[in-house]
């Protein structure tokens, strides 16, 4: 019988089209992903080091398909496939047929369950099969490695199958026992909440391992074990079913089995007749009225009524029905649960809000709206999809449709009252968001609540978008022959189309459902920006389109018993009145006009390009003008600019004069000018040469931004000429990607928009895979560190060395405009503010302009003016920033060199970009980093972000603005790495060593995970090619350790010397070799290996505690015996590791308890030379030891930091000393060919 029941279930499943539809969704989606990975689509190409058919990528895809919203879709599909296997027998009343047959519970229960489970496995195998077939297209290309069956099968077996068993057994049990799928669907929502919350909470480093074991789907475990896999490991390693992943899979498969067996045990055929009810009260069955004495009435007694069919009456009907529908929706458990879950989620996430380096931000209103209620929006989306099905189908499901169908109420009133009811219910949720948000703000003592911003966001922008989605999904439900197909279509359109369109680079907003056009996030400085009108335009466009769906839907409204569009239309065709037709035409016109206007703006006023087309532009630039690269050019030696900023019209007029000098030994007769080019560019330029008109225009290519002049009289060596330019920038209509480039309040731009001299190789296409496609030679990311030609330029500017600078900047009357230099003069003219800035010392050809309505906070340090230009209301951290500036100036002047300026200014700009950047005596600083950070005063480890960022940027005044490396590999060491080091020192002086621990741990983590995502090649620090994970993260760790090994004084002495030798020097610019050599000069011979390992190799350690034990002796002292080991590896550019002998100085320590009860008191600490793989120590201690560590403070880069410190009583984790090359060779990966 088991077999029959099992087969029956499967046969039934394979007869349903839905099974194939679900399979097809997964198949197609993953086929697309596979094809995209295989380079099938004609889109812009990026470089990659990883192959797309490795076990880790396949596992990543499968795990990713189960996350966030996709996870929700999975669970919902699983409910549809698996949950109803038994419940169905009840629903269709077929249960007596089974229960009266001689079958056992086991046969019935497991037959059904396993049948359904197998169907689930079939449907989800669509993911695997789709991806596999997609990647096959790339077979034989460098994008794919050898196709190994286990690469695909193992991830499926490790992740998908156990997850199906877990989810399946839960939804199956829930549905079987409550006899409705409602509980199962609810469970899906709860699961989504768990997924979303755990994702965010786990970001805290300390929880990773625990989270990896506890998270039910193995996603965290997968990320945990693969987090530091280098590209080489990603390409070759199998997913190791061991450690946390094994525990995780065992635990949750166990849970799944347990649930199945408990539910099997509890299941009985009788239970079917008394389902578990959660929400409804027991039915009242009394028939109190049955015996009621019948009174006699006659119809004549009935009051006369007037029937009113005017439009006014229709309005009244609509209003009444809307409220009626709203009440019905709000009363459903689903609504209450969504509201409750959303609320809980907001409260939980409030605890983890806005973490930057684990530092919390103040709960400003936009943070609340974006971070906390963002996920609520997702819930609202789900609610809309679900409720639109409910609303449209409820009358038919509850069989009131015939009663309503014969009333004279119009289809439009019926549709729009349901529509309005749903809109109102979403508005109620928005009220809840607003109230909760304000409560969160107030309860954390934050009083700068902005109710207007809440209202504008929740009841303006978001509501409009929501209304369009509601209209769409309700209309879809009218058209579809059943509710589930409607759900499906809505989910696909709302969730998946943008994903698939993205893969295909179909990015035009005209066909991206409910697109909003170019948009800016809310900024305290600039409010909603200038794009509110554009937003409304897009929403009008989509509303008109949705109305074009809704209006016919009212014709096809399922009023009667007819099914099929044709019959329904025939039934209602009398509604096809002239007014109706007129409305259709009006909507069509609105859609055409708004859509046309959008098209006009994006494609006519501006040029709309796909990434692929952009790529071609770059290729054309290179092909046409590459020959110019080596024609000798003049160099900018002085710059004088007048920049008139017009914030109201967001435009700019600028005039500038460059002094150009011939630094070559030969005359220069050609001048190549690079400017912002492009079709229909918003920039226009005019060039002239002061009083010297003796030039011939050879070429003026505004498309590519290249202008070429020939001097009639070549400029002799050492001579200079003046070059004048006029620049006008005016936005035309709207296009994509707005930035801080002239906004109403908070303008920030730099001299990249000014003309530059010479061909600029930075505009060349950088992806080598793409270059190959276009027949261009491969191009290194950066020139070789020893490339002496490249070192003739610094890495900031190709056309200048150190320049003189002055600028007049003007702006509107209520704003202050700032440029580098010192304010010499300030005046008003024609209702505008003018500022004249002049720099008194040479600076790099790199300067920025800012304008906004600023408040200014001033201070000074030893004659250096400190000014912070900030947005009113952002006073929170000004004192910290000033404190940081002072401490920085103190440390840097004492340890590095004198400060070259008399002023430090920090100037805030809107959060459209979130960075701070150092220009000469000027530091633009985004409002989103630092200005609203909130320090936790009680946590000694919390990182003071504003303090740190400020110290880093101030350090750049030395590192970049005093010494600048050539345009070659490794030069970022002398700017970014050194600024990190400087900031670390200042932070340590202020906050103590302890506060550094968390910071360095983050940096180590960023480095180890950053290198796994390297898409070209990892290089040693000294050869760094502008790779953030190396020059920031590894740089911090390395410099901090170097300071420890050499001593701060020695290291700083070396740094001082290097600065003296190189500050303000021009071509040939210094390089990192010179820097490292200077350090080596100060390094004792015994440690030269260390400097080499740190800078010249990619060195990774595996330091570990092997065993440990202690005995307490009679005199009360302790004898501790332990063995520690160290292995050292050099990695290649793909992260392939080669073990090398170790003979290194490494800290070994034993820790005890402090008086405060912290377990980090050093009882014994030595830097020993590990000249063997393992060493055993026996030492006597007076205090009770708690743990033993080797390199306990993680000074060295360690590929698994968790085994460095082990507590007594714990077994040290098993260590793997593999080089991870234990797999068959044969991977073809092309790098830099």
């Amino acid at each position, binding site marked *: 019988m088991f077999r029959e029941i099992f087969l029956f279930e499967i046969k039934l499943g394979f007869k349903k089209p839905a099974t194939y539809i679900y399979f097809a969704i997964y198949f197609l989606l993953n086929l697309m992903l596979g094809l995209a990975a295989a380079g099938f689509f004609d889109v812009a190409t990026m470089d990659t080091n990883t192959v797309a058919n490795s076990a880790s990528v396949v596992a990543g895809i499968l795990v990713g398909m189960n996350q966030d919203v996709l996870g929700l879709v999975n669970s919902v599909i699983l409910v549809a496939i698996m949950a109803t296997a038994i419940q169905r027998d009840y629903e269709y009343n077929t249960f007596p047929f089974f229960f009266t047959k001689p079958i056992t519970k086991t046969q019935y229960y497991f037959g059904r369950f396993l049948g359904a489970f197998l169907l689930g496995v079939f449907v989800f195998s669509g993911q695997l099969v789709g991806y596999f077939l997609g990647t096959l297209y790339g077979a034989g290309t460098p994008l794919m490695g050898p196709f190994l069956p286990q690469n695909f099968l193992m991830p499926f077996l490790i992740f998908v199958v156990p997850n199906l068993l877990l989810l399946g057994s839960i939804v199956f049990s829930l549905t079987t026992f409550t006899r409705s799928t409602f509980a199962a669907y609810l469970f899906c929502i709860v699961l989504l909440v768990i997924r979303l919350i755990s994702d965010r909470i786990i970001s805290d480093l300390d929880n990773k391992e625990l989270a990896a074991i506890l998270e039910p789907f193995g996603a965290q475990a997968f990320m945990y074990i693969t987090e530091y896999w280098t590209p080489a490991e990603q390409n070759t390693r199998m997913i190791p079913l061991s450690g946390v992943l094994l525990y995780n899979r065992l635990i949750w498969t166990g849970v799944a089995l347990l649930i199945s067996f408990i539910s099997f045990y509890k299941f009985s055929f009788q239970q079917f007749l008394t389902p578990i009810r959660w929400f409804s009260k027991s039915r009242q*069955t009394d028939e*109190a009225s049955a015996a009621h004495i019948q009174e006699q009435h006659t119809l004549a007694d*009935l009051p006369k009524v007037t029937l009113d069919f005017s439009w006014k009456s229709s309005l009244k009907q609509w209003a009444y029905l809307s409220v009626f529908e709203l009440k019905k929706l709000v009363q459903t458990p689903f609504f209450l649960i969504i509201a409750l879950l959303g609320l809980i989620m907001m409260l939980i996430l409030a605890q983890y809000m806005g973490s930057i380096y684990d530092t919390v931000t103040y709960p400003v209103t936009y943070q609340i709206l974006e971070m906390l209620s963002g996920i609520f929006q997702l819930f609202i989306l789900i609610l809309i999809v679900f409720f639109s099905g409910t609303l449209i189908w409820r009358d038919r499901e509850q069989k009131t449709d015939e009663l309503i*169908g014969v*009333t004279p109420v119009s289809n439009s009133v019926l549709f729009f009252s349901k529509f309005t009811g749903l809109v109102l219910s979403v508005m109620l949720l928005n009220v809840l968001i607003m109230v909760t948000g304000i409560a969160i703000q107030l309860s954390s003592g934050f009083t700068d609540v902005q109710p207007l911003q809440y209202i504008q966001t929740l009841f303006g922008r978001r509501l409009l978008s929501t209304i369009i989605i509601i209209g769409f999904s309700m209309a879809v439900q009218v058209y579809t022959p059943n509710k589930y197909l409607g759900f499906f279509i809505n989910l696909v359109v709302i969730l998946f189309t943008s994903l698939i369109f993205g893969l295909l680079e179909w990015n035009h907003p005209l066909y991206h459902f409910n697109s909003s056009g170019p948009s800016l996030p809310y900024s305290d400085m600039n409010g909603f920006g200038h794009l509110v009108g554009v937003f409304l335009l897009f929403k009008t466009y989509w509303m008109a389109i949705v109305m074009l769906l809704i209006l016919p839907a009212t014709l096809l409204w399922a009023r009667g*018993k007819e099914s099929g569009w044709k019959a329904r239309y025939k039934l209602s065709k009398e509604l096809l009145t002239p007014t109706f037709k007129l409305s259709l035409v009006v909507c069509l016109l609105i859609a055409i006009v708004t859509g046309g206007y959008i098209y006009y703006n994006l494609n006519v006023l501006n040029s709309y390009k796909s990434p692929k087309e952009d790529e071609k532009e770059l290729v054309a630039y290179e092909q046409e003008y590459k020959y110019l690269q080596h024609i000798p050019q003049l160099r900018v030696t002085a710059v004088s600019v007048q920049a008139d900023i017009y914030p109201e019209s967001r435009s700019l007029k600028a005039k500038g004069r460059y002094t150009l000098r011939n630094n070559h030994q030969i005359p220069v007769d050609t001048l190549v000018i690079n400017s912002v080019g492009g079709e229909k560019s918003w920039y226009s330029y005019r060039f002239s040469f002061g009083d010297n008109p003796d030039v011939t225009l050879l070429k003026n290519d505004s498309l590519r931004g290249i202008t070429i002049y020939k001097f009639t009289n070549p400029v002799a060596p050492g001579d200079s000429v003046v070059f004048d330019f006029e620049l006008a920038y005016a936005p035309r209509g709207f296009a994509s990607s707005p930035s801080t480039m002239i906004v109403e309040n908070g303008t920030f731009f730099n001299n990249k928009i000014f003309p530059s001299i010479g061909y600029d190789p930075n505009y060349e296409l950088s992806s080598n895979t793409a270059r190959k496609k276009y027949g261009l030679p491969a191009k290194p990311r950066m020139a070789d560190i020893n490339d002496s030609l490249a070192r003739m330029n610094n890495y900031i500017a190709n056309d200048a060395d150190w320049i003189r600078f002055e600028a007049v900047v003007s702006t509107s009357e209520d704003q202050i405009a700032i440029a580098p230099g010192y304010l010499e003069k300030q005046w008003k003219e024609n209702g505008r503010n003018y500022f004249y800035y002049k720099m008194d010392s040479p600076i790099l050809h790199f300067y920025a302009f800012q304008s906004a309505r600023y408040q200014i906070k001033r201070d000074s340090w030893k004659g250096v003016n400190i000014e912070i230009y900030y947005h009113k209301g952002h006073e929170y951290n000004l004192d910290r920033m000033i404190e940081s500036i002072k401490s920085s100036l103190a440390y840097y002047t004492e340890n590095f060199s004198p400060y070259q300026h008399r002023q430090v200014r920090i100037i805030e700009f809107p959060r459209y970009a979130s960075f701070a950047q150092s220009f000469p005596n000027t530091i633009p600083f985004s409002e989103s980093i630092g200005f609203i950070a909130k320090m936790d005063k009680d946590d000694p480890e919390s990182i003071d972000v504003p303090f740190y960022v400020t110290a880093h940027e101030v350090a750049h005044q030395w590192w970049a603005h005093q010494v600048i490396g050539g345009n070659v590999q490794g030069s970022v060491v002398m700017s970014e790495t050194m600024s990190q080091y400087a900031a670390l020192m200042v932070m340590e002086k202020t906050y103590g060593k302890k506060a550094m621990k968390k910071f360095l741990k983050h940096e180590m983590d960023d480095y180890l995970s950053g290198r796994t995502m390297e898409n070209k090649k990892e290089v040693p620090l000294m050869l760094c090619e502008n790779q953030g994970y190396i020059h920031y993260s590894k740089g911090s760790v390395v410099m901090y350790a170097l300071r420890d090994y050499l001593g701060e004084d020695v290291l700083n002495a070396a740094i001082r010397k290097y600065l003296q030798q190189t500050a303000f020097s021009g071509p040939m610019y210094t390089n990192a070799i010179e820097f490292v050599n200077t350090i080596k000069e100060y390094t004792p011979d015994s440690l030269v290996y260390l400097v080499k390992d740190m800078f010249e190799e990619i060195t990774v350690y595996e330091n570990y505690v092997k065993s440990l034990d202690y005995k307490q002796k009679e005199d009360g002292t302790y004898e501790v015996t332990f063995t520690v080991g160290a292995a050292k590896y050099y990695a290649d550019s793909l992260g392939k590791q080669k073990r090398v002998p170790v003979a290194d100085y490494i800290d070994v320590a034993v820790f005890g308890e402090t008086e405060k009860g912290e377990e980090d008191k050093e009882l014994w600490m030595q830097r020993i030379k590990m000249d063997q793989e393992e060493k055993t120590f026996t030492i006597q201690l007076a205090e009770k030891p708690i743990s033993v560590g080797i390199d306990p403070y993680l000074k060295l880069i360690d590929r698994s930091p968790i085994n460095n410190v082990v507590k007594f009583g714990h077994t040290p984790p098993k260590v793997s000393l593999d080089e991870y090359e234990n797999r068959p060779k044969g991977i073809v990966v092309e790098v830099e060919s």
Partner: protein
Amino acid sequence: MELKIKDVSKTYANGVKALHNINLTIGRGMFGLLGPNGAGKSTLMRTIATLQDPDTGSIHLGDLDILRNKSELRKKLGYLPQDFGFYPKVSAWDLLNHFAVLKGISNKNERKEIVAGLLHQTNLYEVRKRYISEYSGGMRQRFGIAQALLGNPSLIIVDEPTAGLDPMERNRFHNLLSEIGEQIIVILSTHIVDDVKNLCRRMVVMNRGTIMLEGTPAEAQETVQHKIWQKLINKEELKTYKEQYQVISSAISEGKMWIRVYAETDPANGFEQVSVSLEDVYFATITKK
């Protein structure tokens, strides 16, 4: 005012001929539509009630072409479908008020009065605050009539209203219906002969989408007068009898079986003539070969 149904036919997509050339004229009073399940009654009811379109034919209420002016008819229509449900967790008062709004009674006070009046009329006033989902079958049917009576309809259609009601409820329901039937056109579709016998002035018998018989109950009875015969047989013999005669009904009695057959002349063979009832007419009509 009369309801005129002319040449109405309807074939479903699956080939079932639900209505075949129906021609009917229905005047004021209670009109019975008798037929077995699947005879096409509900299709006809729904077609009149604007919920379905026929393939061919026309239906007029007075001068109103109801297939072309469905919204006009809906203003004058009361309908109680065979199979209907109500929203859960809505009280009778609220729901009746809800339907009153849908019917276009936009004056709040009038609405209140008519709702109260109808609940009194149908004896539901005392339980007006209870959820309809908790009503018994009879109460639900009465509520169904109450909503059908909203807005002074001139045509009321009730589809199988008494199925499943206990005798007392049925009686109560008949009383309600008969009063309504005095003033307007009421079409009552049913497969219970008694309903028609007690209530209807005129009636038709429908089977397989066609009208088999039309007239008053008395006229109908006349058509089979002297043509119904009965006999007590063994159960096993039924098959043989069915082959030989038009057996219109059978009833078990003390282990044996009474069968009734329709025959123009005396079938002899032990049959005896019986006095006819409307039931015989019905069975004779629908078993006609």
